[in-house]
């Protein structure tokens, strides 16, 4: 419960910061004068790999929390659009994770995997030359599994869902000696969606035989409070940036009397490239 309150406060604070700011021009407005419109909107492509801790619970498989490690990747693209005077960006994210966890007594192993795709838009407020905030929404799809090898007719749980998320974040530029550094933060909170879940004692054999009542559930923060945040530091070099940081990913649900959580904390490292997109008629 405390966790939920902290999450809620966190989002409120983000919203307060966003609303309190007035709209100013984009940081890269200077480039606009000399270059074609599409070139002034570089495409930011990043790929991060990470490792960290994973904590899994799925009462369909076991009442015990499984803990262990996780390997993950996050790749994405972000580009300012020409909408709203260039204040709106498009972002797409593909996230993958593979976890290996054990029960508290260390007598059983669970293997988990997850693939999630999100895409959406953010409105940007450039508060100063160095500091900007953004807020928007993402539409996402989520596919995953958790497998415990020693279980009999319930060896695995599949996960499938789609959702619409609120997303907010900010960035701040500064220098360490002469090296430009950018710190970025983004938090995504699914607001509504639908997800697959077997019923409390329903086997996948039953589902395969055509028993499919209440297997698609409406999800919202009341029954599936999920949250993803990414805090990164970009060390900016000429053509690319080295990016490292923290990704926290909390997936939870309580539907059909089955409780599930998938809590992950990862250290991420990778690179960011800024590509100039030149359209044929702008050469």
């Amino acid at each position, binding site marked *: 419960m405390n966790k939920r309150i902290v999450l809620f406060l966190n989002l409120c604070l983000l919203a307060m910061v966003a609303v309190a700011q007035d709209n100013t021009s984009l940081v890269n407005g200077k480039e606009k004068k000399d270059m074609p419109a599409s070139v002034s909107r570089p495409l930011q492509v990043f790929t991060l790999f990470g490792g960290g801790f994973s904590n899994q619970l799925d009462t369909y*498989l076991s009442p015990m929390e499984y803990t262990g490690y996780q390997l993950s990747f996050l790749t994405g693209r972000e580009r300012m659009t020409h909408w709203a005077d260039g204040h709106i960006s498009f972002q797409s994210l593909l996230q993958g994770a593979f976890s290996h966890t054990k029960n508290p007594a260390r*007598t059983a192993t669970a293997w988990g995997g997850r693939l999630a795709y999100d895409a959406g838009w953010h409105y940007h407020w450039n508060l100063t030359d160095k500091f900007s905030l953004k807020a928007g929404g993402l539409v996402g799809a989520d596919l995953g599994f958790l497998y415990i090898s020693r279980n009999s*007719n319930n060896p695995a749980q599949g996960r499938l869902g789609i959702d619409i998320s609120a997303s907010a974040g900010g960035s701040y530029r500064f220098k360490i000696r002469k090296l430009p550094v950018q710190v970025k933060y983004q938090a995504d909170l699914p607001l509504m969606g639908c997800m697959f879940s077997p019923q409390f004692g329903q086997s996948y054999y039953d589902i395969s035989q055509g028993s499919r*009542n209440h297997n698609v559930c409406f999800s919202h923060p009341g029954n599936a409070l999920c949250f993803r945040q990414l805090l990164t530091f970009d060390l900016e070099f000429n053509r690319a940036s080295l990016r490292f940081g923290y990704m926290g990913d909390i997936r939870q649900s309580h539907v059909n*009397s089955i409780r599930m959580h998938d809590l992950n904390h990862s250290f991420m490292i990778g690179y960011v490239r800024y590509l100039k997109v030149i359209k044929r008629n702008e050469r």
Partner: protein
Amino acid sequence: MKDKLLLLLVLVTGLCSCQKGESDYDDSPQANLDALWTIIDQRYCFLEYKEKELGFSWADIHAKYSARLNPKMSRTQLFEVLCHMLGELKDGHVNISTSLDLGRNWSWKDDYPQNLDESLRDEYLQTDYNLASGLKYRILPDNIAYVVYESFQDAIGEGNLDDMFLSLRMCNGMILDIRSNGGGNLDNVEKLASHFTNEKVLVGYRSHKTGTGHNDFSPLEAEYISPNKGVRWQKPCVVLTNRSCYSAANTFVRDMKEMPVVTIMGDYTGGGSGLPFSSEIPIGWSVRFSASPSYDAQKQQIEFGIAPDIPCSLDTEKAKQGIDSMIEEARAFMGIKN
């Protein structure tokens, strides 16, 4: 400056929100008993039925076995107490599995005559029987096909079945001996049973738990066997059973009972009509329990077994002379039928 402080606050609270999930891990004997009791209380699908049939109260069981615990007891002692507690359910699908032992209550077969002498069965099969995946078969001298299927765990393919039925097509009847078949894969049950009907047959119903309450069940869903597209058996068939026909074998007998050409002979089956699920308790031991029940075509419980159409048992005196009286009775019955 104010903005920066606010942002910093956002970041810090955000990171704090990603605390590890609350863990209520407690490995004490009482915690393990509580966890096991709760799994059965919330997830076991025959609790009300067993309370009524066996005359116990699951609520009282908690107090009864908690009194046998002490904080310093060894793992072996704890295992013993927990096994006894689960033994009250008299369910072969309920087990505790440890690296040392498998906690079980096999009274469903141990308390009854076995009605099978495997060496005798081997004499009927002889050594030159045909073997198609898990199916052993040969033609007996009176032109009766004798088929033995020892476990539904043994995969059988459609090709195996078609070839077997084709090669036995000239026989006057078939004895399908599934005595001591302890179950296995339900797909194999459906596959084999589908060769004994020309029409879609209602064979039973199934349900599953929808919540933690003792009566939280989904509506009964009808289960049908559709005729196989391959070779279908049209002549009399006797299925031989004993108390060790359990789980998927019990389901097979339920299904075959509805087939027009089939007669069930032998002893009651062992039962085990709940599809087992797994869970675990804090000490790390795996727990298996019946999670979703199935019923016969009359919506009756078959957890404690299915009665044969024609009861018969193994005559031990004749067995000493190399005669399996159950097979012989089946042969005689087939002779009458023909």
